[in-house]
Protein backbone atom coordinates (compact mmCIF):
# COMPACT_ATOMS: atom_id res chain seq x y z
CA UNK A 1 0.00 0.00 0.00
CA UNK A 2 1.06 3.57 -0.59
CA UNK A 3 3.96 4.90 1.44
CA UNK A 4 3.53 8.42 0.09
CA UNK A 5 0.88 10.71 1.51
CA UNK A 6 -0.91 10.09 4.80
CA UNK A 7 -4.26 9.58 3.09
CA UNK A 8 -2.64 7.06 0.72
CA UNK A 9 -1.44 4.97 3.66
CA UNK A 10 -4.72 5.08 5.52
CA UNK A 11 -7.27 4.79 2.72
CA UNK A 12 -9.26 1.58 3.07
CA UNK A 13 -7.06 0.13 5.78
CA UNK A 14 -8.32 1.52 9.09
CA UNK A 15 -6.62 1.30 12.47
CA UNK A 16 -5.83 -2.43 12.20
CA UNK A 17 -3.86 -1.74 8.94
CA UNK A 18 -5.51 -4.71 7.28
CA UNK A 19 -8.66 -3.08 5.97
CA UNK A 20 -11.88 -5.07 6.12
CA UNK A 21 -10.30 -8.46 5.52
CA UNK A 22 -10.83 -9.70 9.06
CA UNK A 23 -14.48 -8.69 9.02
CA UNK A 24 -15.06 -10.16 5.55
CA UNK A 25 -13.30 -13.48 6.25
CA UNK A 26 -15.39 -13.87 9.39
CA UNK A 27 -18.56 -13.52 7.28
CA UNK A 28 -17.37 -15.87 4.53
CA UNK A 29 -16.38 -18.58 7.02
CA UNK A 30 -19.69 -18.02 8.86
CA UNK A 31 -21.59 -18.78 5.64
CA UNK A 32 -19.39 -21.84 5.00
CA UNK A 33 -19.89 -23.00 8.60
CA UNK A 34 -23.66 -22.68 8.20
CA UNK A 35 -23.66 -25.05 5.20
CA UNK A 36 -21.05 -27.50 6.54
CA UNK A 37 -22.41 -27.68 10.11
CA UNK A 38 -25.96 -28.24 8.81
CA UNK A 39 -24.60 -31.15 6.74
CA UNK A 40 -22.61 -32.43 9.77
CA UNK A 41 -25.57 -32.39 12.18
CA UNK A 42 -27.96 -34.03 9.68
CA UNK A 43 -25.35 -36.61 8.70
CA UNK A 44 -24.62 -37.51 12.36
CA UNK A 45 -28.32 -37.82 13.20
CA UNK A 46 -28.81 -40.20 10.25
CA UNK A 47 -26.21 -42.68 11.56
CA UNK A 48 -27.80 -45.88 12.86
CA UNK A 49 -25.50 -45.89 15.91
CA UNK A 50 -22.24 -44.38 17.19
CA UNK A 51 -20.34 -47.69 17.31
CA UNK A 52 -16.77 -47.73 16.02
CA UNK A 53 -17.45 -49.64 12.78
CA UNK A 54 -20.33 -47.37 11.83
CA UNK A 55 -18.49 -44.12 12.59
CA UNK A 56 -15.17 -45.19 11.00
CA UNK A 57 -16.91 -46.40 7.83
CA UNK A 58 -18.89 -43.18 7.67
CA UNK A 59 -15.76 -41.01 8.03
CA UNK A 60 -13.87 -43.08 5.43
CA UNK A 61 -16.33 -42.17 2.66
CA UNK A 62 -15.04 -39.40 0.36
CA UNK A 63 -18.35 -37.56 0.65
CA UNK A 64 -17.85 -37.40 4.42
CA UNK A 65 -14.07 -37.01 4.70
CA UNK A 66 -13.92 -34.05 2.29
CA UNK A 67 -16.75 -31.96 3.80
CA UNK A 68 -15.39 -32.89 7.25
CA UNK A 69 -11.92 -31.56 6.31
CA UNK A 70 -13.48 -28.40 4.85
CA UNK A 71 -15.56 -28.03 8.02
CA UNK A 72 -12.43 -28.20 10.19
CA UNK A 73 -10.66 -25.57 8.06
CA UNK A 74 -13.64 -23.21 8.01
CA UNK A 75 -14.60 -23.65 11.68
CA UNK A 76 -11.01 -23.34 12.94
CA UNK A 77 -10.35 -20.21 10.87
CA UNK A 78 -13.66 -18.73 12.04
CA UNK A 79 -12.99 -19.34 15.74
CA UNK A 80 -9.46 -17.99 15.40
CA UNK A 81 -10.87 -14.71 14.04
CA UNK A 82 -13.54 -14.61 16.75
CA UNK A 83 -11.23 -15.38 19.66
CA UNK A 84 -8.72 -12.84 18.30
CA UNK A 85 -11.32 -10.08 18.73
CA UNK A 86 -12.25 -11.50 22.13
CA UNK A 87 -8.58 -11.30 23.26
CA UNK A 88 -8.06 -7.83 21.76
CA UNK A 89 -11.15 -6.55 23.59
CA UNK A 90 -10.53 -8.05 27.04
CA UNK A 91 -6.76 -8.46 27.46
CA UNK A 92 -5.36 -4.98 28.03
CA UNK A 93 -1.76 -5.77 29.00
CA UNK A 94 0.22 -5.55 25.75
CA UNK A 95 2.66 -8.40 26.48
CA UNK A 96 -0.12 -10.67 27.73
CA UNK A 97 -2.18 -9.85 24.66
CA UNK A 98 0.64 -10.80 22.27
CA UNK A 99 1.24 -14.02 24.22
CA UNK A 100 -2.47 -14.89 24.14
CA UNK A 101 -2.69 -14.24 20.39
CA UNK A 102 0.37 -16.44 19.71
CA UNK A 103 -1.12 -19.18 21.91
CA UNK A 104 -4.39 -18.87 19.97
CA UNK A 105 -2.53 -19.41 16.68
CA UNK A 106 -0.71 -22.44 18.10
CA UNK A 107 -4.03 -23.85 19.31
CA UNK A 108 -5.72 -23.34 15.96
CA UNK A 109 -2.88 -24.69 13.81
CA UNK A 110 -1.97 -27.56 16.17
CA UNK A 111 -5.58 -28.60 16.66
CA UNK A 112 -6.44 -28.16 12.99
CA UNK A 113 -3.45 -30.26 11.90
CA UNK A 114 -4.42 -33.06 14.31
CA UNK A 115 -8.03 -33.00 13.10
CA UNK A 116 -7.11 -32.98 9.39
CA UNK A 117 -4.51 -35.73 9.84
CA UNK A 118 -7.06 -37.90 11.70
CA UNK A 119 -9.67 -37.46 8.97
CA UNK A 120 -7.15 -38.28 6.22
CA UNK A 121 -5.81 -41.30 8.10
CA UNK A 122 -9.29 -42.83 8.36
CA UNK A 123 -10.20 -41.81 4.80
CA UNK A 124 -7.16 -43.44 3.17
CA UNK A 125 -7.77 -46.67 5.10
CA UNK A 126 -5.28 -46.57 7.96
CA UNK A 127 -7.79 -47.19 10.72
CA UNK A 128 -11.01 -48.40 9.09
CA UNK A 129 -9.87 -52.04 8.99
CA UNK A 130 -10.10 -52.45 12.81
Amino acid at each position, binding site marked *: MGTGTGIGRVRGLGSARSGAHHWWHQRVTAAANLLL*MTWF*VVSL*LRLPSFDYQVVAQWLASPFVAVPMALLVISV*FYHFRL*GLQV*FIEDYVHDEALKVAALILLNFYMIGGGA*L*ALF*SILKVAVGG*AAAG
Partner: protein
Amino acid sequence: MLVSILHRATGTAMATGGVLILLWWLLSIASGPESYALFHSWVIGDAGASHPIANALARIVGIGLTWAFFQHLCSGLRHFVLDTGAGYELKTNKFWAVMTLVVSIAATVAIWASLLVRF
Protein backbone atom coordinates in the same frame (compact mmCIF):
# COMPACT_ATOMS: atom_id res chain seq x y z
CA MET B 1 -27.59 -6.63 24.67
CA LEU B 2 -28.02 -10.13 26.15
CA VAL B 3 -28.01 -11.74 22.71
CA SER B 4 -24.86 -9.84 21.75
CA ILE B 5 -23.00 -11.07 24.85
CA LEU B 6 -24.34 -14.58 24.28
CA HIS B 7 -22.87 -14.55 20.76
CA ARG B 8 -19.39 -14.14 22.26
CA ALA B 9 -19.97 -16.52 25.16
CA THR B 10 -21.37 -19.31 22.97
CA GLY B 11 -18.62 -18.80 20.39
CA THR B 12 -15.92 -19.01 23.06
CA ALA B 13 -17.51 -22.09 24.64
CA MET B 14 -17.63 -23.92 21.29
CA ALA B 15 -14.08 -22.84 20.34
CA THR B 16 -12.72 -24.32 23.58
CA GLY B 17 -14.95 -27.12 24.90
CA GLY B 18 -16.62 -28.02 21.61
CA VAL B 19 -13.36 -28.08 19.64
CA LEU B 20 -11.56 -30.20 22.27
CA ILE B 21 -14.36 -32.79 22.24
CA LEU B 22 -14.35 -32.79 18.41
CA LEU B 23 -10.57 -33.32 18.45
CA TRP B 24 -10.81 -36.16 20.97
CA TRP B 25 -13.53 -37.79 18.85
CA LEU B 26 -11.62 -37.53 15.54
CA LEU B 27 -8.31 -38.63 17.11
CA SER B 28 -9.98 -41.61 18.78
CA ILE B 29 -11.53 -42.74 15.47
CA ALA B 30 -8.14 -42.41 13.74
CA SER B 31 -6.36 -44.27 16.57
CA GLY B 32 -8.54 -47.39 16.26
CA PRO B 33 -11.27 -49.33 18.09
CA GLU B 34 -9.63 -49.28 21.55
CA SER B 35 -9.19 -45.51 21.60
CA TYR B 36 -12.72 -45.05 20.31
CA ALA B 37 -14.03 -47.40 23.01
CA LEU B 38 -12.43 -45.11 25.60
CA PHE B 39 -14.12 -42.03 24.10
CA HIS B 40 -17.39 -43.94 23.82
CA SER B 41 -17.32 -45.13 27.44
CA TRP B 42 -16.54 -41.66 28.86
CA VAL B 43 -18.63 -39.44 26.62
CA ILE B 44 -21.44 -41.39 24.96
CA GLY B 45 -21.99 -44.35 27.31
CA ASP B 46 -24.87 -46.83 27.09
CA ALA B 47 -26.62 -49.59 29.05
CA GLY B 48 -24.28 -50.91 31.75
CA ALA B 49 -22.10 -47.81 31.40
CA SER B 50 -18.75 -47.92 33.21
CA HIS B 51 -18.70 -44.15 33.86
CA PRO B 52 -22.33 -43.17 34.55
CA ILE B 53 -21.44 -39.87 36.25
CA ALA B 54 -19.09 -38.82 33.42
CA ASN B 55 -21.80 -39.80 30.89
CA ALA B 56 -24.38 -37.67 32.72
CA LEU B 57 -21.97 -34.71 32.79
CA ALA B 58 -21.15 -35.27 29.10
CA ARG B 59 -24.87 -35.10 28.29
CA ILE B 60 -25.21 -31.82 30.15
CA VAL B 61 -22.18 -30.46 28.26
CA GLY B 62 -23.60 -31.88 25.01
CA ILE B 63 -26.98 -30.22 25.56
CA GLY B 64 -25.19 -26.98 26.47
CA LEU B 65 -23.02 -27.08 23.34
CA THR B 66 -26.04 -27.92 21.15
CA TRP B 67 -27.83 -24.87 22.49
CA ALA B 68 -24.63 -22.77 22.11
CA PHE B 69 -24.39 -23.90 18.49
CA PHE B 70 -27.97 -22.95 17.61
CA GLN B 71 -27.82 -19.70 19.59
CA HIS B 72 -24.59 -18.70 17.80
CA LEU B 73 -26.09 -19.76 14.43
CA CYS B 74 -29.32 -17.76 14.92
CA SER B 75 -27.46 -14.77 16.30
CA GLY B 76 -25.02 -14.99 13.36
CA LEU B 77 -27.92 -14.99 10.88
CA ARG B 78 -29.30 -11.93 12.69
CA HIS B 79 -25.90 -10.26 12.24
CA PHE B 80 -26.01 -10.97 8.49
CA VAL B 81 -29.30 -9.04 8.30
CA LEU B 82 -28.01 -6.22 10.53
CA ASP B 83 -24.89 -6.01 8.30
CA THR B 84 -27.12 -4.97 5.42
CA GLY B 85 -28.31 -2.02 7.50
CA ALA B 86 -31.78 -3.47 8.07
CA GLY B 87 -33.59 -4.33 11.29
CA TYR B 88 -32.42 -1.51 13.58
CA GLU B 89 -35.92 -0.22 14.45
CA LEU B 90 -36.35 -0.82 18.19
CA LYS B 91 -39.32 -3.20 17.98
CA THR B 92 -37.95 -5.18 15.02
CA ASN B 93 -34.54 -5.40 16.60
CA LYS B 94 -35.89 -6.67 19.89
CA PHE B 95 -38.27 -9.14 18.20
CA TRP B 96 -35.47 -10.88 16.28
CA ALA B 97 -33.15 -10.84 19.29
CA VAL B 98 -35.82 -12.70 21.29
CA MET B 99 -36.47 -15.01 18.31
CA THR B 100 -32.83 -16.20 18.34
CA LEU B 101 -33.43 -17.47 21.89
CA VAL B 102 -36.78 -19.06 21.04
CA VAL B 103 -35.41 -20.87 17.97
CA SER B 104 -32.18 -22.01 19.63
CA ILE B 105 -34.02 -23.50 22.61
CA ALA B 106 -36.63 -25.17 20.38
CA ALA B 107 -33.95 -26.66 18.10
CA THR B 108 -31.98 -27.96 21.10
CA VAL B 109 -35.08 -29.64 22.56
CA ALA B 110 -35.93 -31.17 19.15
CA ILE B 111 -32.42 -32.59 18.58
CA TRP B 112 -32.09 -34.07 22.09
CA ALA B 113 -35.63 -35.44 22.09
CA SER B 114 -34.85 -37.32 18.87
CA LEU B 115 -31.51 -38.57 20.28
CA LEU B 116 -32.95 -39.71 23.61
CA VAL B 117 -35.86 -41.47 21.90
CA ARG B 118 -33.50 -43.40 19.62
CA PHE B 119 -30.69 -44.26 22.05
